Each structure stands twice: as C-alpha cells, then as structure tokens.
C-alpha cells in the first residue's frame, strides 16, 4: 500500500511565521499618503488597525513568534495534511509527482482562519472589543466570525448584497459563529445610506462594503477593521502553511520543482509559496507560479512550441503551448489590469521575476476541478481550481518535454458552498470563448522562425 498523506505531530507545528520582507532582493516602494505624498505612517492606520498588527505590517524581521494563544487555536485543524495526488497523477499519465496541502480541513473550509485567528488575537490583546470587516462570497467573513467568537470579540460583517442573496449558507455560518452578517449597502452607515437613497435596489460591491466596514470601525475606540488578504501581515500569518509543508516534504525526502497557488489577493498563494521563495532567493532552483483568473481564450489552442515567455522577448526560449509571444489578448491592452488587487509583495516578486503569474479561464478551471473531484474526491473551491488547472498544464509540459517533475500546490479550500458554480458549468451555462482561426493564425506568425521542441 503506497502512502498518500504526510502528517506532522501537533508538537511539530511551526512556532514562528516567516516574513519575506527580510529577504527581498530589492526594496519595495512604501505606500504613500494620498493627501501628503509622504510614506504612510502608523498613525495613519491606527484608526482601523491595532498597533501590534501595524508593527507586523511594517516589520522586516525574518521570523516572528506565533503567540501561544494563536497556536492553541491553530491546533484545532493544524498541522494540515500534505497529500500525494496519486489518482490524479494516474489520470494525467505524465512523469510527475503531485503533492497538495489540504487547507480545506479548517472549520470554515479554507486557509482564511490562518490570519483570522491571528488578527482576532492581536486585536483582543490590544483591548479591542469588536471587529468589522467586509466579505464577498463569505469565505473571509465566516473565518473571521469563527475567530472572533474564539477570542470573545463581537464581529460585524458587511457582505456584498448580491452574494448575501445568492449564498445564504455563508451568512448562516457567520450567524452560527455569533457574528452579525449585514447585507451591504446597509442603513448602518452613512456610506450605505447614501447608496440606498440613490439606488434602493443596489447589489452592492466590495468597494461599498469596505467603505461601510471602515466607517463602522472609525471613531469607535472599542472597534477596529480587519482585512483578509493583500496586506503584509495577512501574508505573514499564512506562511504557517508553507513552513509546515517544508517539514512534511523533508520527512519524505522530496523537494518540489514547481510550487503553485491560486491568487486573487494573494494570501493563500503566499502562504504556501513564500517559504519556498526564500529558498529560491538563496539559490534553489524552483518555479513559483501564481494561477489567476482570466476570460482569455485557452492557450492550449496554440501548438506546443518554443517561444519567449514575454512580449519583450527577454526570457529564454521556453517550450510551451503558445499563441505567439506578441499575442496580447485585448483585455490586457489596458495597462496594470492584471495585477489589480494583488498583494504588493506578490506584485513585487512577479516584477522581480522570482515568481510568475499565469492566467486560466473559467472553463479550463472547472474542467480541471471536475477531473480532480472525480479522481481525488474533494470538490474544490472554484478559485482553487485555478491552481489545479496550472497543475494540469505543468503535467502536460512535463510529458511533452519528457522531464520528471515534482509539483506542489495549495488546495486552498473546498467548494461545498459553491455548488451553484459547478451547476452552471455542468449544465453548459458557462460559455467557452472561441477565438477566430484567423486571429490564431495571425498570432502564430510571430513564432514562425523559432526552433521546434
């Protein structure tokens, strides 16, 4: 019987988080105050964050101790198991070993509590009595609700109205954990009331919900705001995942060639990848891939050929499925769009070419997710399916190149509250965009003179 899972004993849980800012090869630009143009200081953020978290946000210490109280809560589901996806490997029939870290075993079913627990603890330690936040589909809101309950904090979650109506179960989860889940826009804040006065049927938006959550915290000495992604301290807390994974891989004498995570704001990706980024900065040969969403047509319609990895032709020639290096999908014409909303740390590492971002369309991701469910059993969160699509692509590359590879990815959460999205895929409501043949032919002219793999 071949082993499938690698466990750590509870005593082996990492006792420190890893801060990649200590190892950044080039400094990151500081955020500037929109009014003064000067770097944002602790006092600017004090109305919404406790000072202990602000200190972490700007810290450049490499290792930061995880408080005992946080570790005690982590132990409810951590260390999480590292799996070998033997059934999926068999399906792909490629020379790859696929390992995945199962972050879906947390009570709310995702990686989000790794920072929710820490943030609730630090707010409690600072004397805060209530946290306010916003949530889209509810993954973050439910994680923070649970964490607040564990530390005796009141929790108020402004959930975007359209999601609140579509996904009542997430709201119910928040209520079970004792939080107050409020559809946004609401009449609880000036920002919400203004929107409702103009658009009584407004579906809300993340922007409105953030405005409400911040307004709800500002000016109340007992309240603060909490954010579940993007910020440095959030990514820091998530590194407990990657640090555990390194210990687990060490136990079986394996080191990955490729590390993959899906990225929206970047926290789950960072959690697994940043400890490996540290290795890469210190000389290890490893690819770090951020799988992000796009609606662009699938690249697999192009041939597997040698091409430059970028439009500027600065990378070495890479064997890949390609539509030509000068193929720029219309949506990407608009500058800066691709990294909108991504964590500054991740954007910086992509810019430094320490990690790379790859985009996958929703059909590809659901195809991969359904294949995954039918082999490994677990139904993934739709966002997690982006990482699985990247795994499939890496396996296909390995097969084409005839190279053995060890692939590691973050299975960041289950999709049991997202079954409507699977239903849309299974019933054909998601449409595949078909790029016209003449457009493909035009794009491929760019690789005419390059060698073939």
């Amino acid at each position, binding site marked *: 019987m071949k082993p499938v899972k690698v466990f750590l004993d509870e005593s082996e849980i990492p006792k420190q988080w890893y801060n990649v800012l200590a190892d950044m090869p080039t400094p990151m630009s500081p955020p500037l105050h929109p009014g003064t143009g000067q770097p944002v200081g602790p006092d600017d953020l004090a109305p919404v964050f406790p000072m202990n978290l602000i200190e972490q946000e700007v810290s450049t210490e490499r290792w930061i101790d995880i408080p005992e109280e946080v570790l005690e809560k982590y132990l409810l589901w951590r260390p999480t198991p590292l799996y070998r996806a033997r059934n999926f490997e068999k399906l792909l029939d490629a020379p790859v070993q696929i390992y995945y870290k199962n972050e879906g075993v947390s009570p709310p079913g995702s990686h989000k509590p790794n920072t929710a627990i820490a943030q609730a603890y630090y707010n409690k330690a600072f004397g805060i009595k209530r946290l306010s936040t916003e949530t889209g589909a509810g993954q973050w809101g439910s994680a923070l609700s649970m964490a607040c309950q564990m530390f005796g904090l009141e929790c108020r979650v402004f959930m975007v109205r*359209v999601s609140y109506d579509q996904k009542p179960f997430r709201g119910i989860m928040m209520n079970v954990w004792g939080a107050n889940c409020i559809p946004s826009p609401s009449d609880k804040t000036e*920002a919400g009331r203004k929107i409702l006065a103009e658009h009584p049927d407004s579906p809300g938006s993340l922007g409105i919900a953030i405005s409400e959550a911040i307004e709800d915290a500002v000016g109340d000495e007992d309240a603060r705001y909490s954010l579940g992604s993007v910020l440095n301290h959030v990514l820091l807390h998530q590194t407990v995942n990657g640090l555990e994974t390194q210990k687990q891989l060490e136990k079986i004498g394996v080191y990955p060639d490729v590390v993959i995570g899906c990225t929206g704001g970047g926290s789950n990706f960072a959690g697994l990848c940043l400890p490996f980024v540290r290795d890469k900065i210190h000389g290890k040969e490893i690819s770090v891939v951020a799988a992000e*969403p796009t609606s662009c047509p699938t690249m697999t319609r192009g041939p597997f050929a040698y091409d430059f990895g970028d439009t500027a032709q600065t990378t070495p020639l890479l064997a890949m499925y390609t539509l030509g290096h000068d193929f720029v999908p219309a949506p990407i014409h608009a500058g800066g769009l691709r990294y909108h909303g991504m964590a500054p740390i991740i954007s910086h590492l992509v810019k430094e070419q320490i990690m790379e971002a790859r985009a996958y369309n929703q059909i590809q991701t659901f195809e991969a997710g359904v294949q995954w469910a039918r082999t490994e059993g677990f139904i993934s969160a739709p966002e997690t399916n982006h990482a699985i699509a990247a795994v499939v692509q890496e396996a296909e590359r390995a097969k084409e190149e005839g190279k053995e590879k060890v692939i590691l990815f973050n299975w960041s959460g289950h999709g049991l509250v997202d079954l409507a999205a699977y239903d849309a895929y299974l019933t054909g409501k998601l449409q595949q965009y078909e790029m016209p043949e003449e457009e493909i032919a035009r794009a491929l002219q760019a690789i005419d003179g390059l060698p073939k793999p």
Partner: protein
Amino acid sequence: MYDHLEIRCPRLGGEVPFSYCQEEGGDLPCQRVITCWQPYFPVEDYLKEKLTPAQWDRLFNQAPEHKVTSLVELIEAAKKRRGL
C-alpha cells in the same frame, strides 16, 4: 443591452450580471471589466463610448493604487462622514 449577461466574478467569488461590473467602482466600472468580458462581447468599444476620456484614463491607464493608500483614503473619507 448586455446588462443581463452573467459571469463569475473572481473578486466576489460568485455569479454577477454585467450591470454589476459597470457599477462596481461606484461611478466607474470594475477595473477588471475588460479582462473578464472582452472575450464575450466588445466591451472595450462599448466602454469607450460610454465613459469620458478622463474616466477611461482613471480606470485603465493608471497603475493600481497601493492597498494601504486606498485604505488611508477610505479612513479619511469615513472620518469626514462621521464628523471626526
């Protein structure tokens, strides 16, 4: 005419109509609107007709704001609303 079309929003994690994407940024569409919709209909042309050049520039030609900077903006706006 496109308002009823639906897509999965990667930021929200759920299905939304195009009408949502047009208002996601308050007086502006979501910054991802072209990335998400262009394959399905010529949203770039549609928005060029609908937005003023200044709005277009603000939405698509400026680098995304640092999250901390946007938080500070929101804090200042919230303080004003609360008379602080």
